[in-house]
């Protein structure tokens, strides 16, 4: 019972782990290059949750100085993840650009077909 309670107490971590594994699984299991990128995005997004969820202090207010409030949420994880989101967007944009070029060069975005065409050369 104790371990079940632990799972529910830390449900944000459970969600993070499920997202992380799902994303990683898609990257490994799919041969379609766009789907791989979707998996990669899911994987990166899980990390955003890992950072942001513990930053919330229950009963805390947004971190704005005011004499009436003494408990604030931690703003630092949000700032970090804002940076990480920018990095993630840049990565996916570059990935999609590469897939477009690969489609122009090979006429397909399925990994096994691309390897088969390279083998023939």
């Amino acid at each position, binding site marked *: 019972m104790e371990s079940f309670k632990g799972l529910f107490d830390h449900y944000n971590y459970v969600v993070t782990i499920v997202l992380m594994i799902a994303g*990683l699984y898609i990257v490994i299991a799919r041969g379609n290059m766009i789907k791989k990128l979707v998996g990669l995005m899911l*994987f990166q997004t899980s*990390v955003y949750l890992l*950072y942001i969820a513990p930053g919330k202090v229950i009963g805390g207010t947004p971190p704005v100085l005011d004499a009436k409030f003494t408990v604030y949420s931690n703003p630092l994880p949000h700032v970090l993840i804002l940076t*990480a989101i920018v990095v993630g967007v*840049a990565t996916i944009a*570059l*990935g999609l650009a590469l897939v477009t070029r*690969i489609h122009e060069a090979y006429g397909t975005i399925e990994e096994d077909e691309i390897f088969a065409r390279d083998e023939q050369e």
Partner: protein
Amino acid sequence: MSALTAQLPGLQVVIPLLGAVVAAFIRRGTIAWGWATLITAMTPIVAFALLIQVWTGGPISYHMGGWPPPIGIEYRVDLLNAFVLVLVSLVSAIMMPYARRSVAHEIDGDKQAWFYCMYLLCLTGLLGITITGDAFNAFVFMEISSLSSYVLIAMGRDRRALVAAYQYLIIGTIGATFYVVGVGLLYLVTGSLNFADIALRLGEASAVYPRPVLAGLAFLFVGISLKLALFPLHVWLPNAYAYAPSFATAFLAATATKVAIYLLLRVIFSIYGVALDLKTLPVSAVLYPLSIAAMFIASILAVYETNLKRMLAYSSVAQIGYITLGIALMNQAGLTGGIVHLFNHALIKGALFLALGAILYRAGTIKLEQLGGVGRTMPLTCAAFVVAGMSLMGVPGTAGFISKYYLIVGALNAGMWPIAFLIVASSLIALVYIGRAVEVAYFRPVSSAVAHAKDPPLLMLVPLLVLAFASVYFGIDTELSAGVAGRVAETLLSGLKVGGAN
């Protein structure tokens, strides 16, 4: 002057960063090359100034934007990263003159300027990872260098370069994300992102939360290992190196993996080693088998490879095995060997890949079977290849010998003579694959592809000869390489927490 000296750590990163922004507005390839060469030439000056400052005055702490650590981002320069800064910036500056002809030959006219822009961004990222004292800042720089290196690789002429860049993007992003997860776990248990501050608080945190601390190490280790191509996480490397433009291959082979190894050293020795007893963590236990597997399996794969660039790429994976073996030994001689090999291997691989680029420039191919007799038509290029190749094997009197000497002494001091034997045995495999290339180059009749080839123009030849000469010179005068590396190893090891107080 002293005002400028105080800003050196910032300038180290800001100069190439602004250089890249300016390069993005240049349209002509030659002008962009001139600009990139000028910018790159400034970085080793800054790096040497920092090294001298650190050598005489101890570590420098630079507060970005005037915010003191651990609140603000700190650029912290100690002997280890000053050494890596010198290595990265110096090798890049030596290679830059080579780029003009090689890039003009391999990349379409309208894309050349972008190539230099991406190169400068990549250099910014690599120098940034090395100089920063902030774990999250290191991630941002890691992504700057990675994203630009994907573009550099994708610019190769072969369409397979695109697939190689895509695969590197997927694996590189997974690696960087693992690194952020590790940093996140450390942040959750210590509340800090500054390397030194994390190290200070980690011992206490680990007593309360032992599992996240250990999981954080695992995530950091795997993430960085993907970046440094530790066997068996190296699968992205051979294709990326084989199909990238020659200059990009030489640049990335000499610098990118070395910076990742630096980050691994930082995490193991400056964070975990300071806070916890390394002997109780499974770092060496993981590194030993993987390093030895890399030394043998990757070397054997290199023997069976006929594309010379791929052959050297596999050889890089094997050589990284020697460096991580030095880290795994964790004693004075072993660690010195690992760090000095980081330096020597950058010079050696830089020279070898530049030689291949020159052969591709003149003969149009780097397939082994088409290169018969190339040693007679391109004598200086091939001489440089042979010299650097001998250094790779570790022939006495070359830089490679110094690295292996320290590694073997380290293994013997640790009481592990089988490892000393394995180091020698795996070097013999290097003799096979370098020897095979030499045999084709000198003892075969001149083939049609190389019949009209000659040594490349001076701008390409000089950087190649300088690096080849350096890979021998640092086998004789070891003060800058082994001297500094020895002191770095001493500092890292003396900072370690010994015994199991926790």
